[in-house]
């Protein structure tokens, strides 16, 4: 490989690392991404200069097609659907890593040490590919986002893993004496991790998806790193390994923010749900009554959740805030670390609606304020305000930090129906004496509240 290509790879690695560092602060984050983008363009352009590269014209055309599709789909999708787009594009990367391994292995020239790396890269890349597609389908609503379980599920996964490893070993020892036989074993080998990734994602519930996507992201990074070592490409070695490490750490941080252990997420505890009988019933309330309750309050704390994101109600929420502030009501927003579908997702959505940053408060800041709050308005949030996390030791969410909305004098809940949250458990908050329900779509209901408030 030419020296000039190597030099460009070093520069791009530096740009990636600096870009990632800048991505860790809100002030520099966007420039960080642009810097990494510069590194990427550099690495791609100089790769064309590698001596003996064939099919360059076709390559440019394929890249152009991918660029147009990737750009248009990423720009057109609403912000609420961002998590599944991350999953989808991550899957593409895993697939590309699998393709590299597949071609290297079926060519059969690779020496055994590097062959092991190519096998590992292919295995991990395939799992990440099909698993990410599964996660995308769940979040996009193409598949039920509740955990899908069936008898002997874990043994079935174990069998798939075993077959993957057995065939991986066969590929390793078969250093291609006859090219056709080798090709077949290689093809068979790839079938098993592809199946494994998909089936592995099925029993994982919607609430745990961010952690799983983060995990698949780390896995793709690792696969890219392994493939880099296998084909001797320094840019891939360095960047892939960095993403593998930082992605693993992010997975851990996200699981911690949700108070879930990685093990719990992977081997499903949310699937098994205890039914509990609650004698009381939810108390619906008219929009007009609710508007009076809010309009004459001194202090209102809004707790937005995934229901707000689904209903695209962030702009209506801003309007709601403006009307209340005109009336001299103090409005604050309580953002749970995992509100929305991913950590930080809710901040992005509210920022899109121009709700000022200094009104958004995180858990530690706001929890002491609920006691002095007249109305806590829950908009499409559920598990993050469930007091069971503090009191019920048997609850699957026990120990998760929650917003203490139950301490406020009145609680209003905008909710689509009587269903349960992602964790699939009842929420005692909805049955408490000071709690009233506003059943309906978040956007629609906030609109009605704004109208009613203007008449007061």
């Amino acid at each position, binding site marked *: 490989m030419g020296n000039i290509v190597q030099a460009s790879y070093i520069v791009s690695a530096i740009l990636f690392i600096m870009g990632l560092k800048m991505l*860790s602060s809100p002030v520099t984050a966007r420039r960080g991404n642009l810097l990494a983008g510069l590194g990427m363009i550099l690495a791609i352009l100089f790769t064309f200069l590698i001596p003996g590269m064939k099919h360059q014209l076709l390559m440019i055309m394929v890249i152009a097609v991918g660029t147009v599709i990737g750009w248009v789909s990423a720009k057109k999708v609403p*912000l609420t659907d961002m998590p599944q787009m*991350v999953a989808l594009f991550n899957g593409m990367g895993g697939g590309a890593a699998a393709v590299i391994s597949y071609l290297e292995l079926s060519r059969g020239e690779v020496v055994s040490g590097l062959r092991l790396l190519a096998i590992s890269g292919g295995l991990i890349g395939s799992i990440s590919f099909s698993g990410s597609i599964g996660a995308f389908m769940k979040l996009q609503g193409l598949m039920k986002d509740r955990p899908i379980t069936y008898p002997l599920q874990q043994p079935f996964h174990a069998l798939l893993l075993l077959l993957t490893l057995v065939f991986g070993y066969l590929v390793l020892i078969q250093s291609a004496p006859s090219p056709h036989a080798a090709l077949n074993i290689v093809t068979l080998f790839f079938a098993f991790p592809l199946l494994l990734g998909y089936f592995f994602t099925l029993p994982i519930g919607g609430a745990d998806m961010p952690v799983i996507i983060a995990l698949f992201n780390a896995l793709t*990074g690792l696969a890219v790193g392994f493939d880099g070592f296998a*084909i001797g490409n320094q840019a891939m070695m360095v960047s892939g390994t960095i993403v593998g490490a930082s992605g693993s750490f992010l997975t851990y941080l996200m699981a911690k923010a949700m108070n879930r252990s990685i093990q719990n997420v992977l081997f499903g505890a949310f699937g098994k749900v205890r039914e509990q009988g609650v004698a009381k019933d939810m108390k619906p309330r008219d929009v007009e009554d609710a508007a009076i309750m809010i309009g004459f309050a001194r202090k209102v704390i809004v707790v937005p959740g995934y229901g707000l994101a689904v209903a695209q109600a962030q702009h209506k929420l801003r309007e709601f805030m403006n009307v209340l502030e005109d009336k001299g009501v103090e409005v604050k927003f309580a953002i749970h670390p995992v509100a929305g579908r991913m950590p930080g997702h809710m901040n992005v959505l509210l920022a899109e609606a121009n709700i*000022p940053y200094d009104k958004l408060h995180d858990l530690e800041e706001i929890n002491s304020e609920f006691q002095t709050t007249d109305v806590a308005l829950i908009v499409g949030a559920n598990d993050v305000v469930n007091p069971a996390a503090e009191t019920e030791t048997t609850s699957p969410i026990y120990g998760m930090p929650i917003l203490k909305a139950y301490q406020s004098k009145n609680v209003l809940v905008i909710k689509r129906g009587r269903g349960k949250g992602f964790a699939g458990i009842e929420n005692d908050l909805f049955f408490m004496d000071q709690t009233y329900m506003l059943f309906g779509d978040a956007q629609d209901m906030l609109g009605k509240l704004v109208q009613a408030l203007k008449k007061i």
Partner: protein
Amino acid sequence: MSEIWVALYIFMLSGFTGFEVVSRVPVILHTPLMSGTNFIHGIVLVGAMVVMGRAETTTELVIGALGVLLGALNVVGGFAVTDRMLEMFKKGK
């Protein structure tokens, strides 16, 4: 022999760098940062280009082109998604 050791050093140092750059990230940036790392492993495109550039048969060429397509989607989609998320952080105070 020495090449293996160099490779191990690259692996170790890159790993530590990865941990280090994300070690003090606020919760609100978890998702954008994950999206950013998702973009960076799009470097896999470079590898896909290398194997496609070596293709001898039509089958290899087609599979290689598929790899390049997937890699390009990862790069461009990953970048655009991250940029859209971060666009939101410039407003407000």
